[in-house]
């Protein structure tokens, strides 16, 4: 479903993504992990057609991201880290706009929106009367997730999707993506919350400084490296192993 071949992105003198190669079959939830600045968001933006790769290639559902960007975009849903929305639209106006961009008929779009409202426990009155600028962070995230799934895409990219969601919504979201994957959707899930990734994802890709460090099933990788948990494995790989000692040393500087 997703084929990435030597994908590279260079900003000035900085290589953000460095010859990244992986492939993801349909129906898989893949955790995309890495420390800040590792190149996760840049990779997702390239796959979503928001950034032009410097070199390399990628295909989604058989369409090349460079040659057929509109075909790719019709088949993906993307929830960016910013969960940006047009703040001066109401939730309903925003979702109807998104539906129009994917040529979803108005009545079908309304039905779909109502299903999402019910799922996310949103109030229809809020959606029709309140402008998005007045929504809480969590509510905006729910609208952003809805807008990514409204057109029923076969591939979905999530960049920190749980940020701002309350505990119940997060539980519901995790169940949702597992069901979506079960029904054949491919999900690339970028997050810093490693225990969630460990529980939800079939597979993880760990990158650092734009390079792929590890690719495999979370439990197998943890066992192979004798790390105990995915979190410990992650810190071992990305130079955070000595973090606890550094934190202790730094805390001592506060003592009188």
């Amino acid at each position, binding site marked *: 479903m997703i084929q990435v071949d030597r994908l590279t992105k260079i900003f000035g003198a900085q290589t953000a993504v460095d010859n990244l190669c992986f492939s993801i079959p349909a129906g898989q939830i893949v955790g995309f992990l890495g420390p800040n600045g590792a190149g996760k968001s840049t990779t997702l933006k390239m796959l979503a057609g*928001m950034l032009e790769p410097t070199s390399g290639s990628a295909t989604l559902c058989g369409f090349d991201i460079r040659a057929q960007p509109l075909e790719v*975009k019709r088949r993906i849903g993307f929830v960016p880290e910013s969960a940006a929305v047009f703040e001066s639209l109401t939730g309903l106006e925003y979702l109807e706009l998104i539906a129009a961009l994917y040529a979803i008929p*108005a009545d079908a779009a309304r039905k779909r929106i109502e299903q999402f409202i019910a799922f996310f426990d949103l109030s229809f009155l809020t959606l*029709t*009367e309140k402008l998005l600028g007045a929504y809480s962070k969590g509510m905006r995230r729910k609208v952003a997730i809805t807008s990514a799934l409204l057109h029923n895409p076969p591939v979905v990219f999530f960049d920190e999707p749980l940020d701002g969601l309350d505990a119940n919504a997060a539980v519901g979201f995790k169940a949702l993506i597992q069901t979506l994957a079960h029904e054949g959707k491919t999900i690339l899930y970028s997050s810093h919350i490693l225990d969630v990734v460990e529980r939800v994802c079939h597979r993880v890709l760990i990158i650092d400084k734009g390079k792929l460090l590890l690719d495999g099933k979370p439990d197998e990788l943890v066992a192979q490296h004798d790390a105990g948990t995915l979190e410990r494995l992650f810190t071992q790989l990305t130079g955070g192993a000595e973090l606890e000692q550094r934190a202790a040393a730094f805390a001592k500087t506060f003592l009188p």
Partner: protein
Amino acid sequence: MSSAPIAPPVSANKALRRLFLTLFLRGRSVRGLQKSRLPSSLPKKLALTLLFYALFGGIAASTGNQPTIVTALFLHTMTLLFLAMFIAASSGEILFNREEADILLSRPISPRSLLWAKIAVLLQVALWIAFSFNLVGFFTGTLGTFGSWRFIPVHAASLLLESLFTAAAVVLLYHLCLLWFGRERLDNIMTTAQVLVIVVTIAASQAAPMATVYFAKSGGDLARSWWLVLIPPAWFAGFDDALAGSGAITSFMLAGAGVVVTAILAWAAFDNLAATYTSSLQQIVESSSSSRTRPARASGDSRRWLERAVERAPLRWYLPDPMTRRGFLLCTAYLLRDRDTKLRVYPSIAPMLIIPFFMLLNLRGGGAPTGDAFPLIFGASYLALSPTLALFTLQYSQQFQACDIFRLAPITGPGFLCAGARRAVLLLIAFPTVLIFAIAAYAIRHNPTELLLLLPGVLALPLFAILPQIGGHAIPLSRPVDAAKSTSRGLMIFGFLLISLALSGLGWLAYTFHLLLPALILEAIFVFTTTTLLARHLARSPWPETD
């Protein structure tokens, strides 16, 4: 669950046009607003704005009974300035919005659809403005020499052409700036362009009636000078004159230039660059993606020149207190870098800075001190009040909540911040303007003794700068932008006019009775004592209560 009516299916293009018009009318960020409060306020606000343009366009009535080319030149000059002001202010936000790139770039929309939807909205609103401003002008044009009913449809067509020209020119300019200089510099360029256009518009609104009288006196002959082909409004005025006026050959040439240049610009801006529009938007995404990973930029170092300068003489003498220095640097950073602050402060003080210069232009050159030198003393007194207005405006900021950090710090009150703001405004705005005014006055009058007439205003500068801060008011960057009331600003400017009239009147009396020197000494003592006492009081004042 829902009782709302189901909307008919809409095409992606139509949905995009509707989106950008809604965003334009409502603004991009309206946190906390209910939709129910929008429908009544928005059309009202829009209608009032268009009514203002229509009323302002009423001054076109003064160009009646003139040759068509003169009336049309006045109308098109003013229209172009208003359109440039609107399009320059709106284009950046509409065309190159970072958040929008996050929302729309992953959607299946072609770059052409996206760009054209935005341009359609820009043009639509530009036409509303152009037609509102020209409401009176349509009829004035029919009354002048060569005037006939044909002026109405021809002028409507030339307005359409002019709107297209302005939109294409601004879009092309911004687009090229983005491609050549990158997003960060584009922000600075756009802000500077907007401030300049606003300042030029204000200056032109003073100059255009004078120029019209000048052209009228020449019987319209000057309006056919060869150099008019270099001025875009003259092309569209030529269009009016060619088809609904004198029909002179020169007018046809001007009209031809207008049509050709507009066609080329429109093709370049709307068609040729449409293909690269996505890459321009990608640049915006790129700048946000790469900002975290890029090494420190060289410009970051260049920004620190002021920080180094305040640690050395003579700025160190001007800012002896380290806390005041910090307040000065903060306010200077906002006055020089923050787009929102620059767009609020400079256009608001522009009329105050420009009007004295126009008064100077009306002075006769050379000669001994006479009654007509009064504009010198009045101009300097009026300029001296510019820091007052600048400080009133500087108190509003989109980042007003960040000011809470000073309230949390173990500091008595906002004294240091206010002192820094006063010194920043005096150094960046008041001193240079007064200096330029003095040079201009000397260039026009060639009489160095008359420069003494500027001193009543110059001496009053520190007092005028501290007045708005009395009682815990005008703390820089401390209030939300919504709290700014434009109506009170109008009253304030009227008050400034009275104060400067009083000050310059007293100064003029002293000058007439050869008592200027003792009067200046008295003023200096009064200003020094009052300012010192007020500054000490301010330094001890606690933070005012928050709303």
